């Protein structure tokens, strides 16, 4: 999977992963890798600037929590984030469906 394509959709991937519940960065990177069966193997560090940008746009919130003796920033999707996720997911589904139709594959 082209890294650029993952990077271009990282916001949606993170919002989708956070829709399942609050998580910290390490869990989110692992979740995206597992859900994609290892296909979306992005540089894990890029998750953090993307999370910070989502937070500055009000799509997620975060707070420090201590687990196993380490401080972790735990992220949670906001109501605005859920709306953005739904909208972006619908756009993506429409795009994928159209691509499949053009390529002649079943949508």
């Amino acid at each position: 999977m082209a890294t650029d394509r993952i990077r271009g959709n990282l916001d949606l991937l993170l919002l989708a992963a956070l829709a399942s519940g609050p998580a910290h960065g390490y869990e989110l990177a692992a979740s995206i890798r597992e859900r994609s069966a290892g296909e979306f193997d992005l540089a894990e560090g890029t998750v953090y600037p993307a999370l910070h940008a989502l937070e500055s746009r009000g799509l997620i919130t975060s707070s420090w929590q201590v687990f196993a003796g380490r401080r972790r920033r735990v992220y949670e999707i906001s109501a605005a984030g859920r709306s953005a996720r739904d909208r972006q997911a619908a756009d993506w589904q429409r795009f994928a469906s159209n691509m499949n139709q053009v390529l002649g594959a079943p949508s």
Partner: protein
Amino acid sequence: MTSDRIDAYLDDMLDRLEGTPAERRRMLTEAETHLRDSAAALERGGMNTEAAQSAAIASFGDAPTIAKASNRRSPSALLGALVRAGVQLSVCGFAAIGVAALLARGLSLVTSTQWVYGAPAGYTFTAAQCTHWLAVQPAASNCRDAAALESSDDSFLFILAAAIMGLIVAGVILAVMRLARRRPRRVVRNLPRNVTAAIGATAFLGTGLALVVAATADGVARGPRGQGALYADAAVALIFGVVFGIQFLLTIRAVPTTPA
């Protein structure tokens, strides 16, 4: 002594990160937690410590790339930070104008209206200027005195204008703060304090030095303005500049580290 690859990686990243101390500390803390978790998981899978740390770093991404991504700001965030810094410096600017006008007024009481507000000796008034000054200051005996008295009166307008502008800016700040409380909580990124302080120091010290030059030159180049008023403006600008300069030096002062 054992080498900790994660520590070395974090040192490299810290050196490349930009932003406020809180932003850099947050990114660094998150990176360290992530790398330690990742390395611990790999060690549990059978790797030795050094190999696990190397693999964790490789998965995380190289420090220049991650720091570059972290340093990136959206144009709107950058614009917002610049506007906030501009407003902060404007408030100081208006305060400086007000203080300088008051200082000039005080200076005229202990020296003379002519020295503080009068035109330099070499300045030649045009006939139109003389007619204007004498019309607005009919009590003055000559053109030069009329110009000085009018300039003195204008200084009150400066104080008033500075106070009104300061109140408007303060009102806008309060309105924006009130509005921000009603909206969902967002992370506000400001310019780093050392950048704002450096801009303030440069602007005020530069203005102060330019005013000192204009005052000491005492030639027609400064126009029909009094030497004392320019010295008062220069003194206030330099004081503000020095305060910003000290603030800048304090923000960039190296934090002493204790040996490990």
